[in-house]
């Protein structure tokens, strides 16, 4: 009995993580896809892994995609020191290229957008990064 309890305790984190993965997967697939325009941000964070940090440009986003035709700004991204900060994780081998492209977007007229899976009352989940309307992998 004690051994079974011990085994259960050590496998509990794995079960929690697997359940969480299933939940996130279901949430992402059930949400409606909405496209939001993004602008630059000053990323300062210790979490490892490469990402583009951005803010959502609600001025350039089509709010008719959302229920009540209103952009739910507070539901997107987390509050950080300089406003609401969002992240899109990118593979290490493309990090520099994408980062440079993102930083030069204003001067080169490059349009960055992110597709989110959105459901009212649930945290929106980023699905894809678009560069000039194309998935980022095709654009590079």
């Amino acid at each position, binding site marked *: 009995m004690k051994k079974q309890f011990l085994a259960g305790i050590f496998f*509990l984190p794995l079960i*929690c993580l697997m359940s969480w*993965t299933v939940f996130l*997967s279901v949430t992402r697939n059930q949400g409606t896809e909405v496209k939001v325009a993004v602008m630059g941000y000053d990323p300062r964070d210790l*979490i490892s*892994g490469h990402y583009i940090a951005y803010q959502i440009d609600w001025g350039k986003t089509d709010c008719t995609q959302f229920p009540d035709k209103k952009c739910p700004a507070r539901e997107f991204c*987390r509050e950080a020191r300089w406003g609401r900060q969002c*992240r899109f994780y990118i*593979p*290490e081998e493309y990090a520099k290229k994408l980062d440079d492209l993102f930083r030069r977007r204003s001067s080169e007229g490059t349009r960055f957008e992110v597709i989110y899976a959105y459901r009212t009352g649930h945290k929106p989940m980023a699905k894809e990064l678009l560069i000039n309307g194309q998935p980022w992998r095709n654009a590079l």
Partner: protein
Amino acid sequence: MSIPEKIKTWQENNLLSAQQAEQILAFERARGNRTFWRSAFIFAGLLIGLGICLIVASNWDALGASVKLTGAFLLLGGFSYAVYWSICQKHNGLKELFVIISFLLVGASIGLIAQVFQLDGGWQSFAAFWALLALAYVWVSRVLFVGIAWWVLFLSGVLKWTWLEPLFEHIGKHLDATSLTLIAGLWLLSYAGQKANEKLEIYTRLAAAFEKVMMWAAYLMVAFVGVRWGMVRWHNTLAIECFAYLIVFAFLGARMYLAVQTQNRASFKRNAVLAEIYIFGIFTSRFGNLFLSGLGFIIGGILVLGFTYVLRKTTRYIKSMEAFQ
């Protein structure tokens, strides 16, 4: 004096027979080997676990998300079973290896899930979740630094920077009862950890780790006050400087007094050395400009020699003190 030297001295004074001496030496040799292997397992565990974290962080595009997730879960499942197996087999060295890897794997898995699903939770939610899920592994570890790492992770996850920032800002600008209260509070928490450890040590070393973390936090707070208000001369008045000195020496003095009461020579020596370092720091901060010259370098070198001599004398004296015989 090393153990073989001590044993030789005891034998010469007829306190130990040759057979007893041999038995003690054989026992210590065996223990030393176990210590070596245990340390090797711990170091290997750290390297392997950190390596996995770095691989996850690089976010390989060559592998699909489902492959990465399946691989991570299989690894975590495998090492979780390994922890359970090593406990059943009573193999403590391997247990620590698998515990450390599992602990780091939990963090790597959370990071991987965040990457795959593009989550932007931030360090606090990440740290709190990691600490919560890894608690079971840390509970069974007898390695103190694993517990310390867990407490640092847990506290960084639950203590919001928005609560702490105003506090540190206040202490940085004002030397008042708030600083003393914080130092006293941290010391009390450390004492609480010490008392909890007396009851819980046979089950877990988390209480001992909490005691260490709180005591280091208290020392850091005292060092901050001592340097910020005691040595940065051009910001302070003499009264504030003296008050800062009082805080530092009162804290270290109290620690030394408690060390004598508890016959803890190591603690007494540590606090005595810190007090000497602080005195040296005050001295050099007063004559800082003097050292910005060739002559200053020479004087500085002589001072360092003098300081080292005083330190050695102090530590030797502490060893011979009657209070610790």
